[in-house]
């Protein structure tokens, strides 16, 4: 167990900057996620922590020890690979025991340790089998067991669940979170699946093009995204983002999206220093757009139903008003009375408490949603 400090880490492949000035301080026992689209540098960062890739510059410390350019075997980290990296010529027992045999532990100790880990991961029944005879879910468990069996300082996981089907993934999420908390070893987990990161992480690092965009708790990432990219990468369905120009109307400052104006919270506008004439990007999550049957005071924006997607507990209405397309997410009971055929005339309302504004050039958040400013964060 140890903390992990990464300072100004860079990795350059030829002309390509895979990792660009990454700074991370992970506390002992934390479960931290590197989240980002493929090619964003998250796996390269992880491989540099493991020692499989050498940094171009920067410094990596595990438990206060400088390991920047050490070989993997001197770092004492445990790792699970995306395709598990299990040795197919050895049995499951052999696979889990391998790191212990390398350390020349005696047979009895190895057997006890492997037995314990196998119990934790519930794979005692398959210890004598070869990996190629096992389904993906079991392989996953074996790979995790092999990581757990050592008293590693840090656990590293590289998209370990990407080969599991959705159901198993859900199971593994809660199980892995539980195991991580009960063992208490600092863990870095790489994923491109925002749901995995949101549900399991203590803190999430969002990366794009080799750069860290935000390093915060899941709630903070979700409610106070640092950039437009973070806001639309996290959350399902994605946040609606529309081009808008700030304008003055008889009700004060509004965001004019072209087809319709969006009312804003005036106190919030003043606090955020917004001025009329600014060209920005307006963001609002689908759950903060409500749908109504007819245009009126409650639902001022007229729209046409483009597609209707029921998900069971919630209904997704994708609406179109002029050139703008807005996805909404509301509970099935609330929207039971609404039309569900494409082309139905409906109306919508944007909750001014949950409107975000982003810089249209840099994508940085200009104004966080009013509701998120009121100390509701954890």
């Amino acid at each position, binding site marked *: 167990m140890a903390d992990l400090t990464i300072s100004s880490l860079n990795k350059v492949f030829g002309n390509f900057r895979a990792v660009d000035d990454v700074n991370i301080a992970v506390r002992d026992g934390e479960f931290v996620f590197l989240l980002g689209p493929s090619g964003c540098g998250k796996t390269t960062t992880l491989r540099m922590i*493991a*020692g*499989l890739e050498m940094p171009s510059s920067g410094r990596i410390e595990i438990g206060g020890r400088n390991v920047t350019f050490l*070989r*993997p*075997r001197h*770092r004492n*980290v*445990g*790792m699970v*690979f*995306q*395709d*598990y*990296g*299990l*040795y*197919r*010529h050895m049995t499951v027992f052999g696979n889990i025991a*391998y*790191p212990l045999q*390398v*350390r020349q532990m005696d047979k009895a100790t190895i057997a006890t340790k492997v037995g314990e880990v196998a119990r934790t991961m519930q794979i005692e029944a398959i210890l004598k089998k070869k990996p*190629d005879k096992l389904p993906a879910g079991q392989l996953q468990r074996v790979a995790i067991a*092999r990581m757990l069996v*050592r008293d590693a300082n840090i656990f*590293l996981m590289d998209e370990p669940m990407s080969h599991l089907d959705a159901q198993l993934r859900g199971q593994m999420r809660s199980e892995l979170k539980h195991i991580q908390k009960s063992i208490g070893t600092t863990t870095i987990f790489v994923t491109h699946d925002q749901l995995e990161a949101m549900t399991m992480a203590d803190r999430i690092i969002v990366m794009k093009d080799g750069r860290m965009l935000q390093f915060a708790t899941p709630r903070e990432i979700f409610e106070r995204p640092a950039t437009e990219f973070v806001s639309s990468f996290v959350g399902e369905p994605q946040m609606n983002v529309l081009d808008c120009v700030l304008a003055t109307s008889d009700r004060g400052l509004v965001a004019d999206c072209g087809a319709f104006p969006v009312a804003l919270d005036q106190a919030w506008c003043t606090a955020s220093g917004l001025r009329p004439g600014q060209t920005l990007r307006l963001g609002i999550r689908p759950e903060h757009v409500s749908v109504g049957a007819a245009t009126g005071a409650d639902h001022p924006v007229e729209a046409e139903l483009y597609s209707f997607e029921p998900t069971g507990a919630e209904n997704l209405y994708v609406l179109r008003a002029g050139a703008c397309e807005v996805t909404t997410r509301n509970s099935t009971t609330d929207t039971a009375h609404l039309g569900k055929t494409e082309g139905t005339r409906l109306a919508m309302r944007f909750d001014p408490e949950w409107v975000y504004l982003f810089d249209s050039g840099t994508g940085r958040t200009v104004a966080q949603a009013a509701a998120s400013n009121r100390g509701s964060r954890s």
Partner: protein
Amino acid sequence: MSGIDTRITSPDAPPVQRNGWVYLVLIFVCVLNILPYVWVVMTGFMDKAAAASPSPQWIFTPSLEAFQLLIQEKGIMKNFMNSLIVSVASTFFSVTIGMFCAYAIARYDFAGRDDVSFWVLTNRMMPPVAVLIPIFVTFQTLKLLDTLPGLIILYTAMQLPFVVWMLTGYFRDIPRRYEESAMVDGDTWFQAFRKVTLPLMMPSITATAIFVMILSWNEFAFATFLTSTEAKTMPPAIMAYSIGANIEWNVLGAAVVLITAPLILFVLVMQRHLISGLSQGVARK
């Protein structure tokens, strides 16, 4: 579309495949291949008179006359041993050296890597006869003519490109993850290579070794020119019985049996490895 008859509907059962005729073709090809060999083997067990008879003799009294002549008078077992030593040793060296070379080409990114692998391939394209004279002169200078080490060195060099080319592909098929995983688990690079990669490569290495062994065993041109008495291998030794005015067919037949029997036995024993090795990385994904 107009040519399709839309009135036809599906039959009640899927059409049955009738490909019994494939076996006829296979049997024909097998007979065509094996019959001449069977004939040569039979000749080997005939006595001189039967073998020289102008009409084919399908029924005869087997005799070991030809084998006796070859083994006891001509001492062909010495050539046999030479062949064995040369092919086993050159296989061992070319596979061992080639393995590391292939590993480097498959795993490491270094300047001129593609050029190296292309150069390795072009070595195979060159007809061996083209370098026969330079090699003869070199061997003469180095006093390697008619010695087993000379042949071993030469065959190792000849087979290396093939080994490198085959194994590079197989190494590429083994994900790096295996080694990386072992290295994170605490192995040095070489330990990871020996304990994880090599066992996974074993079927492919075996298959490559079998091929190389066969190629070395059968090599004729260089063996003919570079050996005379001491290091003569089987192919040139047997060649001696097929030239001249009166060829003794039964002696030639016996010689053919002696040179082919080890290979046939070897392949029969190893065929499972050969097939599994060749299909490595294809069948298993």
